[in-house]
């Protein structure tokens, strides 16, 4: 399981990943431009005794990649303690299938943290668990309180929703991201910090 140093070194740098993107470049650039990480959030990474290798699985069409990979890349850039290598998911399914979400979904991004001996410390998949919980709460509130959602069954296919409800849901996704952006970035850092701490302690 995991990867060898030789395999790892075949991955792209973050800059090379960005250079080969064919879509969402502007969204990713906007995420980078508006990303603000506080020094106290970076301190843990800055104080790591040894740099870590981080294998990233990504694709340019994925919203969670566009949202979360720039956070990891900024930590790498600011601290010099994370050595990133990016692999395209669909060209590296042998790696991808080692890190399936809930054992079955090829969700990305995946960030896998290795120490200097390529011992895996832990991995992050898709988005912080805290944000999934927050999203679930917000959707519950939307269905309970928004006039457009009245009478619409939670979990109904969008194809079976009235058009007003479908449009409201679409609008909600954008609003949720805008409202929770800073929380999400912080949660990414907290989650990867936690898994590194647990991995190092083993």
């Amino acid at each position, binding site marked *: 399981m995991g990867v060898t140093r030789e395999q790892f070194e075949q991955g792209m740098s973050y800059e090379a990943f960005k250079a080969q993107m064919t879509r969402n470049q502007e969204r990713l650039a906007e995420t980078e431009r508006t990303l603000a990480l506080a020094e106290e959030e970076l301190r843990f990474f800055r104080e790591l005794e040894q740099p870590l290798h981080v294998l990233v699985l990504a*694709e340019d*069409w*994925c*919203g*969670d990649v566009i949202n979360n990979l720039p956070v990891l890349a900024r930590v790498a850039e600011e601290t010099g303690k994370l050595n990133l290598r990016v692999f395209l998911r*669909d060209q590296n399914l042998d790696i991808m299938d080692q890190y399936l979400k809930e054992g*079955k*979904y090829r*969700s990305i991004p995946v960030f896998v943290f290795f120490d200097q001996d390529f011992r895996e410390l832990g991995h992050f998949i898709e988005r912080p668990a805290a944000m999934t919980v927050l999203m679930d709460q917000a959707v519950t509130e939307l269905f309970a309180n928004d006039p457009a959602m009245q009478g619409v069954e939670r*979990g109904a*296919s*969008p*194809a*079976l929703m009235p058009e007003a409800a*479908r449009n409201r849901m*679409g609008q909600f*996704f954008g609003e949720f991201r805008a409202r929770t952006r800073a929380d999400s970035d912080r949660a990414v850092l907290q989650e990867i910090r936690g898994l590194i701490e647990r991995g190092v302690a083993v």
Partner: protein
Amino acid sequence: MKDTVADTDRKPLKVSIVYCAACGYEPQTIALASALMHTFTYDLAAIELIPWQEGAFDVVVGGDLVHSMYRDGGFPANDTVIAAVRERLER
């Protein structure tokens, strides 16, 4: 020009495909839509593509959810959807 089903006989059957636009599901969506177009030509009232998020891939035929990635896992075989459409057209 006379095609497979006369206008007056055509049933107003719509197929909707909901696909996660943040998940790279466009190839499967286009392949399914293309298969439906080629199989049913004029016999469908509409083929609707609905971009969505959160990992969705649903196929609704005439108001029936015949495939849901959340419920059934994965993508449907095109032939399965075609059979579901044909069955409803013949009702």
